[in-house]
């Protein structure tokens, strides 16, 4: 793993306000927390609590209205769209509830996609992708397309894709939401393993059973942090 800042995520007095017509929606009303490198954190909250908004901010898909967000030492609020894309590419790995793999594309190519945008040669892309697929236990499924894989396998491919650029933080948005309980346990086992090897993981979930796997839980309600438990 390349050199990382000790504090992976540093959020200070962050607010996010949307305008919907004439109405202002205060999705986040000022949240502050820090996540150190190597932590495994679950963000919980009922719908409308602002956890999706926080996830979008942490994922550099959006900028805070006020406050400061530092990812791996970089102040995200000052970056333009192109720089945000670069941050997402180099320092973040996304895992979604719906897997979000490209349908026409093999598992290997899906995993290799971020490396294409990073400008690596096809040979190096496929080597790195094959290695990541091995790590999530799908080395023998490299040529399969998403529709030829089970839900659990698809999520493993998505995890391999999220890790292929060696990101500072792995962001998971309801990663087990589309999976049965046994497969969910397997994915959580994989997360635990990754975290044991030093990977920083931030996971959004409304499911206490799943959040239990994390070492720390941040609870949101109405755009504010109501609990931060280890």
């Amino acid at each position, binding site marked *: 793993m390349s050199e990382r800042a000790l504090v992976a995520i540093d959020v200070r007095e962050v607010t996010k306000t949307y305008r919907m017509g004439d109405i202002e929606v205060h999705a986040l009303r000022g949240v502050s927390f820090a996540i150190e490198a190597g932590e495994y954190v679950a963000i919980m909250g009922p719908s409308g609590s602002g956890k999706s908004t926080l996830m979008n901010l942490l994922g550099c898909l959006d900028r805070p209205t006020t406050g400061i967000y530092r990812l791996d030492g970089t102040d995200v609020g000052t970056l333009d769209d192109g720089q945000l894309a670069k*941050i997402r590419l180099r320092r973040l790995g996304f895992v979604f509830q719906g897997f979000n*793999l490209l349908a026409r594309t093999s598992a290997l190519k899906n995993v290799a996609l971020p490396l294409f945008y990073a400008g690596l040669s096809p040979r190096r892309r496929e080597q790195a992708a094959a290695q990541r697929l091995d790590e999530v236990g799908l080395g023998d499924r490299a040529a399969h397309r998403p529709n030829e894989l089970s839900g659990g396998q698809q999520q493993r491919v998505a995890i391999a894709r999220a890790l292929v650029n060696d990101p500072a933080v792995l962001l998971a948005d309801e990663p087990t939401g589309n999976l049965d309980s046994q497969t969910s346990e397997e994915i959580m086992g994989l997360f635990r393993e990754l975290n044991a090897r030093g990977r920083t993981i931030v996971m959004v979930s409304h499911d206490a059973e799943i959040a239990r796997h994390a070492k720390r839980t941040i609870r949101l309600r109405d755009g504010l942090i109501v609990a931060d438990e280890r």
Partner: protein
Amino acid sequence: MNQYVREALAVLAANRARTLLTSLGLVIGVMAVIAIQILGAGMAGAVGGVLGSINDRSFTLIPNVRQGDFTRAQIRPNDIARAKERIAGIAEAIPAGGITRLVRAGRRHSRLSLAGESDQRFVTTGLRFGRAFSSEDVATAAHVALLSDDGYRALFEPGTDPVGASLRVGDRRYVVAGVLERPKTGILPNVVRGDVFLPYTTYERDYLRGRTVFGARFLIQPDADMPAVEHATVQYFRTLKKGHVEYQTFDRKSFGAAVDGIFGALTLVVALIGAVSLVVAGIGILNIMLVSVAERTREIGIRKAIGATRGQILAQFFIEALLLSAFGCAVGLFLGVALGGAVNRFAIVAISGVVAPIPWFRSIGIATGFATVVALAFGTYPAYRAASLDPIAALHYE
């Protein structure tokens, strides 16, 4: 770059029917433009070949075609001979036009056109066998004949030397003096055309006795000024007819200018067809690319979340549009060359005998230009739309 092309090809291949239907507009447009310009080149080549076989020191006089009454326009051979003496700068004058007769040679026979020619050759086609007419042939109205390639083929075994053989027309006999090379006179009016040429004196004596002709052909002297001589000739015949008939002349230059005018108009029409089909085909591509972007909104969201920049998304969709239009143009190029080449070969070349080379560079240039313009004009906006999508909204698009 490679990866963009491969992904775009995969998308186009996955939607085969859509790809084919969308590119159909371009296929038809490019095909039509290329086929028509190949035909134009073929016809220009044919006309050029025809003009090349006319002596460029010659011109033809005919009644002005815009007047209604031609009955008084006919010219007597004597008038032509007199014009040669009276008008300064004229070296030779012969009756224009021909006459069709059954011509026999040995046991073969064919209906062929007979025409007059002088020793100062009006037609510049080279000789394959024998010799051209001598001044003595003309002066004595000798019973000799020159065969065109068509005439030769109709009456003799290919390859045999017919010089000295007899041609019989009715009860008249002519000795073959020479054979012209493969002609380039196919699509010209019969003022230039003839299968069997006779010395014009012979032609007048044997076929024009007491008759009149429609026009005359003139050769000017080497130091004479062509427009001045043409003007003087028109005036001479107008005066001869006491102003009742108007005449006009055409020579290689004015004929070429008229032909150029026709091709200029043709080119303009082709350009218009091209512009219209380009816009229509381009709108089709614009439409299908917008559909493609809408269908793949979620995919675009995934790519953006992963870290694709606007430029990278733009490139992906632009290259897809470019390949789509390139595909249509390539097929159109192929079909256009095939169609144009076939019509050229079986119609124009068959009639004129002039093979104009297919203008490959221009054809490929047209196809490439079309593909580029359509992709730039109609592929940019969908690609821009894709690149501008908000990743959060795109990710949650169902």
